[in-house]
């Protein structure tokens, strides 16, 4: 209830003048009636105070002139009715004009005080509203994400709150027509915008805008602008951070592949893709330099679907003016503008796409220039930034992958060589024994027996001695034969794996069920490996397993050989113990195969080996 009352009292526009006259007359009448009543109990000389209320109200609401008029009317009526002699104006009587004058002066002061109070109250209310407006404006401006878009909203709010028509806020100086004027908005003396207002605005309103609205608007706009700058800087740094994080994630994905020892070709593919996405290239490729000045495509990636990619492994001549040749020549990262001349460099793409920028990073493995990582950016207007460093990070991963693969290959090859050399030596020793010592001993035995038959019957002791020597020699031969077989199974080279496995089965002290399925002859080193796997396993079973039956299954095609040996013994074998199994593991791994032993206690032992056969 208070607010509407207060606001009606604080209205800038005054109630109509006629209403003021009526109200004034009403007050004077009512006050006179009250005074006449009060005159019965109170001395009339103090009743002039009653009239001051009317003067106060009229002065406050209708201003000083009407207030003064009311005061004058009040004084005359008071003089006429309440100051004796009654019903006669005593103004000009010598003794009575002084109280009337005092009354009028007091009434004048009251009127002035009331009018001033009203002015102060109205101004205070205006200030409050302006403060509200500037707070509103600041809130609107500081909350918005888009400063420029918020300006019309703020202008509408100003119009509404200040009760002014047709306001506009613009950035920068503006040209205005004759119906408008522009109030400059400045920050530290520099104009950054304008408040456009109607030209016919009253001077007071204009003054008020200039003095009290513009400064707060300037402050809010500057703060909002600063805030927008900070926000966009924050957003930019957030974007930058996200980019760095994304790049690190991509690098980590590739590094994980490298660490897992995934095949280099797979890593090349991952690098081409991940790097392409990170540097936002249109195409990427990895090429390997060959000694005959050709390059082989190791992997490629394309941002857009444009038909099948060039086949991996495709070889092409090195184009002397192209990027790959440039990197080969300098050994340094390079960048060229790819046009018709470099068409060959980028294979299919550069022929399709007219122009672009190609960047290459050399792949240097152990001091040797191995190949090049290429990124292609379509179009000439875009100068890719910071791409070299990113390409270098990915290239380092490629280098590591290649080094690892080479080290692994070398290790495997050297292990294979060790196994092969040992096999060959054993084979040779076996042959030497067979062709040399064994044949000589056999011949010697035959000669001894011949000598024995030619001894005359009258020399039985000599005959017996010769016979014993021949028998002894036969035993030596048998020992030697056993030894030879351990060194290298001749049956393997003469009769093949099937015959050799059957021989092992016949010699096994534990019954064996053998199932062999082999497509033709396998490469010798694989036959030797399988022979030793079975031989070693059967020996172990006989020694440790307490088994009653062993099953041996060999399944070999031209692609892979699988050996599974299972016994029904006591289990609990430890594959880490016993050099026999370790030797087998080395042998199988040198052939890129795998060997696995499972031996739960009480449930027999199973050995499974898988060896790729390949082309030998």
């Amino acid at each position: 209830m208070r607010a509407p009352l207060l606001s009606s009292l604080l209205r800038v526009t005054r109630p109509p003048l006629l209403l003021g006259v009526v109200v004034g007359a009403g007050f004077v009448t009512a006050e006179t009636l009250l005074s006449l009543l009060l005159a019965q109990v109170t001395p009339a000389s103090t009743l002039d105070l009653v009239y001051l209320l009317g003067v106060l109200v009229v002065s406050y609401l209708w201003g000083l002139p009407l207030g003064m008029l009311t005061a004058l009317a009040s004084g005359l009526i008071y003089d006429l009715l309440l100051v004796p002699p009654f019903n006669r104006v005593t103004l000009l009587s010598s003794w009575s004009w002084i109280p009337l004058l005092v009354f009028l002066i007091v009434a004048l002061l009251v009127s002035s005080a009331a009018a001033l109070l009203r002015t102060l109250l109205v101004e205070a209310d205006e200030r409050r509203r302006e403060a509200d407006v500037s707070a509103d404006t600041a809130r609107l401006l500081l909350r918005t994400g888009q400063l420029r878009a918020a300006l019309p909203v703020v202008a509408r709010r100003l119009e509404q709150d200040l009760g002014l028509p047709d306001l506009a806020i613009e950035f920068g100086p503006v040209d205005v027509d004759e119906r408008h004027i522009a109030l400059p908005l400045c920050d530290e003396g520099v104009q950054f915008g304008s408040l456009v207002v109607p030209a016919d605005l009253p001077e007071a309103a204009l003054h008020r805008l200039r003095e009290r609205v513009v400064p707060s608007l300037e402050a809010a706009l500057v703060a909002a602008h600063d805030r927008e700058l900070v926000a966009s800087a924050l957003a930019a740094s957030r974007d930058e951070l996200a980019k760095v994080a994304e790049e690190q994630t991509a690098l980590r994905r590739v590094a994980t592949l490298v660490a897992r020892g995934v095949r280099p070709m797979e890593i090349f593919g991952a690098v081409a893709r991940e790097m392409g996405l990170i540097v936002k290239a249109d195409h990427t490729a990895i090429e390997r330099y060959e000694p005959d000045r050709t390059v082989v495509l190791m992997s490629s990636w394309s941002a857009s679907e444009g038909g099948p990619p060039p086949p991996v492994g495709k070889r092409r001549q090195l184009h002397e003016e192209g990027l790959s040749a440039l990197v080969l020549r300098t050994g340094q990262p390079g960048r060229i503008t790819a046009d018709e001349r470099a068409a060959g460099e980028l294979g299919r793409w550069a022929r399709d796409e007219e122009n672009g920028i190609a960047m290459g990073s050399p792949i240097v493995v152990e001091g040797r220039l191995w190949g090049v990582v290429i990124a292609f950016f379509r179009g000439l207007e875009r100068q890719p930034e910071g791409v070299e460093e990113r390409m270098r990070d990915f290239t380092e991963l490629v280098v590591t992958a290649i080094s690892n693969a080479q080290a692994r290959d070398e290790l495997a090859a050297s292990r294979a060589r060790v196994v092969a050399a040992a096999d060959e030596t054993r084979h040779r020793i076996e042959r030497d024994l067979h062709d040399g010592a064994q044949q000589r001993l056999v011949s010697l035995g035959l000669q001894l027996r011949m000598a024995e038959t030619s001894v005359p019957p009258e020399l039985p002791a000599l005959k017996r001695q010769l016979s014993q020597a021949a028998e002894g020699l036969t035993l030596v031969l048998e020992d030697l034969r056993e030894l030879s077989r351990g060194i290298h199974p001749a049956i393997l080279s003469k009769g093949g794996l099937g015959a050799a496995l059957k021989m092992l089965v016949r010699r096994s002290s534990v019954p064996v069920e053998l199932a062999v399925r082999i497509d033709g002859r396998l490469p010798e080193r694989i036959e030797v490996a399988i022979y030793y796997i079975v031989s070693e396993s059967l020996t172990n079973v006989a020694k440790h397993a307490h088994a009653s039956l062993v099953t041996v299954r060999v399944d070999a095609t031209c692609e892979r050989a699988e050996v599974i040996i299972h016994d029904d013994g006591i289990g609990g074998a430890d594959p880490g113990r016993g050099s026999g199994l370790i030797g087998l593991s080395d042998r199988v791994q040198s052939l890129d195969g795998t060997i696995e032993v499972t031996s739960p206690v009480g449930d027999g032992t199973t050995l499974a080996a898988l060896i790729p056969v390949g082309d030998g």
Partner: protein
Amino acid sequence: MPLRCLIIDDSDHFKEAARLLLESDGIAVVGTASTTSEALRRCYELRPDLVLVDIDLGEESGFDVVVRLCEETGDHNHRPRIILISTYDEQDFAEMIATSPALAFLSKPRLSGRAISEIIGKANAG
């Protein structure tokens, strides 16, 4: 008339020792050979009653020689008796010996006129 024998082996020591032994046991060693082609030629020239073939002829296989001899020496009646010999244990080559058309296997240290007679006698009886 003694048995006429051809020895096919790549060890000269053994061939010499075997020849002396067999001849002293009354078997005539009419020739020797070291390779498959030589063996076939000798066999064709000499028409032996008996051929002793070493399983291991270096690069060549005695089993192959036996098969070739059987293929190229005409009908069954005129074919020489063929016995495989070796320093290896018979067990090692059991399957291959069983599938070979050779009459039998004889371990080299056990070679003698009597051992050969027994094999042939058994074959004739069978």
